[in-house]
């Protein structure tokens, strides 16, 4: 009888990916530029989980692999297994062992991944969320989910992550927020992601341009206060 997979459980004989990073560059039209970078499993066909219904312009950026059907314009590298989609990478024989061990990186575009307008909420905040479900056969030691926000947008906050952050148990949050090359970036790191376990990060972003209204209201209120509350300075009579 097969045991159900649980987070952190590794099945004997299962291939392990030391690192798996999924970087999503978000665009204002709701499309994404996705880059998946992971440790290679040398000499074997690699099927990487794909949670996007349609992708465009897939290409290998680095690593000793080629995409399935790369030389055949009509065929797609996307395959379906057990009801899930994967992008299939085929190994290329290389003589240099260093090259064989280098990280494999694949990029593609996802047009219309989400409806930007519909994701808009109060205060002009846009909510974005992505779930990574490890449908692959690999045990992932370190998984990283990175969002690069469109230029001119700020990260308003990280709403939710899975696994959930518990400050009582973890001294440091599992996500990082920073500014990199003019983009605001949020990156979630999850360790020991076994088959069927997932990682989620939900963020809110908003336009970097701030309204001048608070400035005007602040100045007006301050001036009015200084005028109408001058009596505060007068000595109280007993």
């Amino acid at each position, binding site marked *: 009888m097969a045991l159900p997979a649980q987070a952190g459980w590794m099945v004997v004989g299962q291939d392990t990916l030391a690192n798996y990073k999924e970087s999503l560059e978000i665009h204002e039209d709701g499309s994404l530029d996705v880059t998946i970078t992971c440790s290679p499993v040398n000499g074997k066909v690699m099927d990487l989980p794909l949670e996007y219904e349609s992708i465009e312009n897939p290409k290998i950026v680095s690593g000793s692999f080629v995409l399935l059907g790369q030389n055949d314009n009509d065929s797609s590298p996307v395959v379906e297994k057990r009801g899930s989609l994967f992008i299939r990478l085929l190994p290329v024989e290389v003589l240099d062992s260093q090259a064989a061990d280098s990280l494999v990186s694949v990029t593609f575009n996802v047009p219309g991944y989400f409806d930007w307008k519909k994701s808009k909420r109060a205060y002009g*905040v846009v909510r974005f969320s992505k779930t990574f479900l490890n449908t692959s056969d690999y045990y992932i030691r370190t998984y990283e989910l990175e969002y690069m926000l469109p230029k001119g947008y700020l990260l308003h906050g990280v709403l939710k992550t899975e696994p959930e952050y518990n400050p009582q148990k973890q001294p440091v949050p599992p996500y990082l927020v920073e500014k990199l090359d003019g983009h605001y970036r949020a990156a979630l790191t999850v360790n020991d992601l076994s088959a069927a376990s997932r990682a989620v990060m939900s963020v809110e972003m908003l336009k970097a341009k701030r309204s001048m209204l608070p400035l005007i209201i602040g100045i007006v209120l301050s001036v009015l206060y200084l005028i109408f509350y001058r009596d505060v300075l007068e000595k109280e009579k007993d």
Partner: protein
Amino acid sequence: MFATSAASSAAVLDKIDGLLDLSKYKLSQIPSKYLKNNERWMKYLGMPIGVLAFLSVYYMKTPSGLTMGGQVVLASFALALIWWVMEPVPTHVTSLVLMGLLVFFNGWKEADVLGVLGYSVIWLNILAFILSSMLVKTNLAKRLALKMIVKFGHNAGQITLAFFALNLFLAGLIPATAARAAMLLPIMIVVASIYGASNVHPNNFGRNLFLQNLQAINFGSSAYMTGSNANLIAVAFILSMGGTRVYYTDWFFAALPVVICGMLISWFIGRKFVFPLKEEEKAPVVEGGIEKINEKLVEMGKVSGQEKKAAFIFGMVILLWITDKLHMRMFGFEISAVMAAFIGAVIALLPKVGLLKWNEADIPWHLMLFSCGAYAGGLALNDTGAARWVVGSVFEALNIQPGVNFWVVYCVVIVINMFSHIFFTSKTMRTLIFIPFVIATAQYLGFNPLWLALPAAFTIDWVIALPINAKPNVILFSTGQYSVLDNLKYGLIMTTVGSLLLIIAGFTWFRVLGITPGFGG
């Protein structure tokens, strides 16, 4: 002649009655305060300075590592901190403004902001005030206070020293600081009134009494590993991240001398320099002094049935507070400090069985709103990661690199940890953020984490600078016996004293105990 003396004696007893009439000093009513010249200017300029602080932080370029939500919270908290200190509007109104800013600028969700009113800390405050009202109504507080004055109250110095000793003793028994504050509050009010201090006419005796008690309740907890939940969290971090187990006695023998020195220094400088006592404030404002107060105590007669009932109810609550670790074994579940007070308050309010009618419960709701704002701000700082970002930035700005002298790092860590409490509203949050940073810094620099983390943990309970910094501070602030500025002035002086004490202890006592690197190390 005899008739004149009898009349004068009766007049003195009447005066004591007047002083002890606590219905005049209702905590739920805010008395108007006389402001000094500098306080009037602070009040006047506080509003634009606070607004300026908000706008400066809000419009600054969002730095790397900080979210926009965090920036909004930082801006709102900066405004509130300035307004709480300078008081252009009453402190509870500032809290409401802070909560409004958090919601309107999308710093924290409306439901979260409004939900703070239901937090256990607010409940504990409300229940503590109900129990305190019961002690006042039944005259038990008056009797205990008079007894304390008769025994130790011959002069102002003795009575405040007695409170320090009492607090140090209670801290070992009752970890909940708010509970200790609630317990001592009515006694303090009676003692203060005997020395002529009230919310209507605050004097330096009252300032010393209440602020020294505030300090003793808070940093008194630092003597014991179990003195507060935050201490235990720090110990857990030192074990899990630093790999060293800290035992109860390790903590106790290291921290106790620091706490005792802190209390004695506070007792000395408070009366002499911070709020110097005038001659008339050094003794009870009652002609005939202690003898007359003793007469009043005798006149109160035997302990009444109502007092016994109040003592029973309050005693039961205290027993539940003290035995918290045994509850699992006794009941199969744990009764928290809040629920213990809850049981006491319900019994106190029960018709026929209890002692108090709802109208007699003196609950300062403005203080509850003040607390809500402070907690909402503090929690939002934590939730948005803004507090962590500020702490990280401070450590980053210091640019401490391997090879640096240990004692330089030690002094920096103590001073930063100690003074950081001014910007926090919860010890637990401060511990969760700071202690891991300190341990990570020690590991990065190649020091034993214990050398820095345990002394840093001794700073956790020094939350004494502002009424927002801890629960007992809010409870004692409700008495109106001192201003935010008084609190800040004495608090900053004692924070400096505490830092120096821990630095001196690091060089000497902690070395002997092996907490900091030894003389050969």
